[in-house]
């Protein structure tokens, strides 16, 4: 392949998805409960990718038919794309659905950009932008080689991350407009201009917004429940820390249009006005 042109580029990314943490199944209640949840925030859930987590799921039998569950997800307007934290005993049941079984939350892989040439893995480390969500594959013959490369990179990356003591924050100085998404991978996010309605800002760490927040802000997206959100003017559509979120309706009687500080306490989001006298 060395003399011919590169046929494709394989780019990985973090995709924010909704995690459905299964507790009991089968259940006749499943679909109606799911539809109920979805109807509470249709814009958030509509056509969302969903990862089904079996971390809190301990069935009586090792054989569980997950196919109706997947059909129910589609019925409710969600798109299941994988299972996560699958116990050895349930692996067979999961396999029959055709969806992959991903490793648990803590070990989930992160962004990689891989070109299909032989550039040494060490130079392929992502620059921390994490904004690309793209995967083009034109030559299936290349798949294997790339998979190998990806594995190497993941390993290299994990090593390097362990050595890093401090990762600088990602700083955005211009407004984040509707339809745009900014992700601060592995660090804090600081936004010096407004986040418009319909815009989304995400960070593995804290989020600071020194302007109105009218869109969505999701801190600790890889599960850091100590992450916090600070904003100068709270008018958000949604705020979330480590996957636990609140929608605008509920925010409206808490520091609305004020400087606000959002954090998780006992698995609940608390919203406090900053400089409340």
């Amino acid at each position: 392949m060395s003399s011919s042109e590169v046929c494709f580029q394989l780019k990985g990314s973090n995709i924010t998805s909704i995690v459905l943490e299964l507790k009991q199944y089968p259940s006749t209640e499943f679909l109606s409960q799911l539809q109920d949840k979805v109807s509470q925030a249709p814009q958030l859930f509509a056509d969302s990718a969903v990862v089904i987590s079996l971390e809190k799921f301990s069935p009586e039998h090792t054989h569980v038919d997950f196919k109706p569950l997947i059909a129910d997800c589609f019925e409710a307007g969600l798109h299941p794309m994988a299972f996560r934290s699958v116990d050895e005993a349930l692996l067979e049941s999961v396999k029959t659905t055709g969806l992959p079984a991903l490793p648990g939350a803590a070990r989930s892989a992160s962004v990689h950009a891989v070109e299909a040439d032989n550039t040494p893995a060490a130079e392929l480390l992502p620059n921390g932008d994490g904004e690309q969500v793209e995967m083009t594959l034109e030559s299936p013959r290349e798949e294997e080689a790339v998979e190998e490369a990806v594995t190497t990179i993941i390993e290299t990356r994990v090593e390097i991350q362990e050595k890093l003591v401090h990762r600088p924050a990602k700083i955005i100085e211009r407004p984040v407009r509707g339809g745009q998404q900014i992700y601060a991978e592995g660090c804090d996010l600081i936004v010096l201009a407004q986040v418009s309605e319909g815009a989304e800002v995400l960070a593995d760490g804290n989020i600071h917004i020194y302007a109105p927040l009218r869109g969505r802000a999701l801190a600790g997206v890889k599960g850091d429940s100590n992450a916090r959100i600070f904003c100068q003017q709270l008018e958000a559509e949604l705020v979330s820390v480590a996957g636990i979120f609140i929608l605008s309706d509920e925010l409206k009687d808490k520091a609305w249009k004020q400087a606000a500080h959002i954090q998780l306490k006992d698995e609940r989001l608390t919203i406090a006005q900053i400089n409340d006298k």
Partner: protein
Amino acid sequence: MGKTTTSASIGTGLAQRGHKTVIIDFDVGLRNLDLIMGCERRVVYDFVNVINGEANLKQTLIKDKRVDNLYILPASQTRDKDALTQEGVEKVLDELSEDFDFIVCDSPAGIERGAQMALYFADMAVVVTNPEVSSVRDSDRILGILQSKSRKAEKGEVVEEKLLLTRYNPERVEEGEMLSVEDVKEILAIELLGVIPESEAVLKASNQGSPVILDSDSNSGQAYADAVGRLFGEEIEHRFLDVEKKGFFKRLMGA
């Protein structure tokens, strides 16, 4: 709503000040600009013909009969929207910029390909908004596209952005049926180039095929002239923002 009206008036205003100006209609398939400029009968070739090399610019550009230095590059009525390629547009813009001081690109509605093509090469964008929530939201999105998908953005530069609020009706703002200038400024947070009042004069002007800025008796014509002045850095106070309260004396004078 009001993009073509605005392109026609601002383009005309630039030419009136002695700058050689061309207005390009990017709305392939609709052809609106030539109607508003009153030159629809003089269209022989169009933008797509030039891109495809079927005609040159000299054959295609229509010279305005009222204002010196003003030219129109009409859109095609028949061809499909994919006829505008980025390379083709770039070639035409490069050729035009050798000759013209200003190139005004009238964008089609929405955020799709046509609009993206019209904004891709921009140095400055005038975002036309109506005082309604949905319109302001669309403008916010287009600003996002402007600062992420334009050529300048790709080079890490910033496209200058200006807000033009049109079809502004102070009575309806006062009734709470429309957003106020302040509301819109707060949501979009960009510099205000002008506020054009809603006016019969606009409809009359477009029926006559004459850009409303040439109707210097009308308040919308004057508001566009102010906006053009601000483009040149003139400090002009915004007018027509409040409900006109005609006092007894004013009424007596017939003002």
